[in-house]
């Protein structure tokens, strides 16, 4: 019963991601938060595998869990936050924030009405089915060539901006 196994795997991954997201947001120690975010990213990569996005799962593990999160942990180590342990993790306005978050989640939950989604039969195109990576690569370099170049420009601007913002101030 591979369908049932897929369902069980999905519900496990969903429950684990929600649990690790809640723990990541509520832990007082920032390093613990980072580790829960790592658990969240790995479970979301599993969900990507289940919905047939293998390349996205690999990118999620390599770029998100491997690069971006390590970057955050480096900064956490670099900054040395002694005062973080004493104060409450949330500001005084946290009930308002919780209401906003729960309200938005409820709205998005309500908005996923079945009538809004086109059924797969309507949009399925003919043509030979290829591997996931080949399809994405073709789309990336033909239909999405301009956004691809713009993404490289954004990354370049981010590198230059991070260097400019982060360098020591020189007296002029």
């Amino acid at each position, binding site marked *: 019963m591979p*369908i049932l196994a*897929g369902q069980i795997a999905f*519900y496990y991954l*969903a429950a684990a*991601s*929600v649990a690790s*997201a809640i723990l*990541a*947001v509520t832990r007082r120690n920032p390093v613990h*938060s*980072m580790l829960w*975010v790592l658990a*969240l990213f790995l479970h979301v990569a599993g*969900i*990507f595998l289940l*919905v*047939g*996005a293998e*390349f*996205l799962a690999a*990118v*999620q593990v390599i770029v998100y869990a491997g690069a*971006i999160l390590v970057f*955050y942990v480096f*900064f956490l180590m670099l*900054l040395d*936050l002694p*005062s973080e342990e004493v*104060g409450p*993790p949330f*500001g005084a306005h*946290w009930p*308002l*924030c919780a209401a906003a*978050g*729960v309200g*938005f*989640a409820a709205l*998005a*939950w309500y908005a*996923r009405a079945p009538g809004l*989604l*086109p059924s*797969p039969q309507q*949009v399925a*195109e003919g043509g030979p089915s290829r591997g*996931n990576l080949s*399809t994405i690569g073709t*789309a*990336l370099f033909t239909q*999405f060539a301009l*956004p691809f170049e713009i*993404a490289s420009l*954004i*990354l370049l601007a*981010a590198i230059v*901006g*991070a260097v400019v*913002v*982060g360098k020591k101030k020189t007296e002029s």
Partner: protein
Amino acid sequence: MVPVGACLALSAVLFGIGLIGFLGRRNIILMLVSIEIMLNAVNVSLAAFSQNLQDSRGQVVALFVIAVAAAEAAVGLGLVLALSRNRPGVSVEELTQLKW
């Protein structure tokens, strides 16, 4: 075959959790991490749409989202570094001035 509605529900819940973290946390680094949680939630729904419509373009857009998340992390953490050089601590409640 995972139902698309379940993926969208998961995405909504994750986004809500990230929103709570972004609005409520006092630590500025954890606010940035909450943004990453929200972007990840959006990627989940993009991948679910991509599977539902049998169209790989959703996954391409998710790749762009990941690229923008990397850029945002670099610039945001650079700003935090510049901020912490001027004053200790990264609590947003103490940042009440534009310049000091």
